[in-house]
């Protein structure tokens, strides 16, 4: 069964990069453009991993993370933050809410794979 990964970022560019990063693996990528859409997608899709941006319109990543952790049905889904912001207050608040890892943009695709593979099983697709 494919590993389901939810990418929540208002930038289509980042969602495309995340999709490309996991393309060699047996993964299904689900996308959301803000925290509100991300919460709905998390409830609907029950992903194995969420990759979450911080600054987004409608609902930001910190608010989404807080709501996710308040929901008994969603709180165990592991989250990796993927953001350009690594300021002290943000990082402490996010760590307190509970994330498995944190990756600061700009990032290499290998870094995201390395962090994700510590949390979920990434199985390479067979060569065609």
């Amino acid at each position, binding site marked *: 069964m494919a590993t389901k990964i939810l990418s929540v970022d208002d930038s289509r560019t980042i969602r495309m990069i995340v999709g490309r990063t996991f393309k060699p693996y047996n993964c299904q990528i689900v996308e959301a453009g803000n925290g509100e859409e991300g919460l709905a997608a998390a409830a609907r899709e029950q992903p194995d991993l969420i990759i979450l941006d911080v*600054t987004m319109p409608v609902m930001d990543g910190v608010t989404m993370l807080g709501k996710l952790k308040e929901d008994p049905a969603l709180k165990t889904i592991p989250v990796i933050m993927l953001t350009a912001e690594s300021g002290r207050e943000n990082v402490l608040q996010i760590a307190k809410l509970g994330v498995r890892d944190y990756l600061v943009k700009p990032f290499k695709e290998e870094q995201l794979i390395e962090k994700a593979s510590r949390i979920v099983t990434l199985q390479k697709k067979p060569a065609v």
Partner: protein
Amino acid sequence: MNDGASYLELSRRYGFAPKPESASRLTQLVSRQDADLDEIAKVINKDPSLRARLLRVANPEAENEAEYAVETVEDALMRNGMGCVLVLAMSTPLAQALIKTFQTMLSLKIETVDPRTAAPLAGEQLVCNIDFTGKVVGHVLLRMSAEAGRLIAAGILGLPPKEMQDMNEVRDVAGELLNIMTGNFKSNLCDAGLECKLSPPDVRSTGDFMPSGARAGSVEHMAFHHGNIQIFVDVTANPWSDD
């Protein structure tokens, strides 16, 4: 959940790159409204690159160093106050973030060049702007030719340049590039107590960009170059806004 770890421990756990020391030190000094100019001058005088940039900011009309009317760091600080120091403190992480983004996501080594000698952009260009408000007010403006934008977007999205024809995608990549840069400096400002918020990036294509006037000493012009790619970045900042 956080096990009570400090920011330093979390930085190590998550593998954060260290922040530029002189920029962090400058931001901390500027964030104190009673900052001592001598202390700031010492930090700047220890860093030849910062010193050169401050004097360039303080002499916006000069075409080269021989034309400088303001020749010392102390004089530049006396004439321009904290605005110019803040611009320097902010533009250092901005420039580093741009260089790192090119290295990390495009495997390209982009270099800083003197904006006074860089060839101006011709033809259609992409103009990206992010405003920031809070204890610091200003904006970051990034400009490049539409063709450079297309090459960068193709590289970041992993597509052959000839397939990168959708200008909406090119603009989205340019906006994200600026987002990454400004996110890095926002962290630096917030850590020093200068909380601010960033606007979403505004990206437009134009054939007749006209720079807006900014008070001398509160804007830094930067330019970067790699092959056919030339990028201009302007940073303006004014501290102590109560907005």
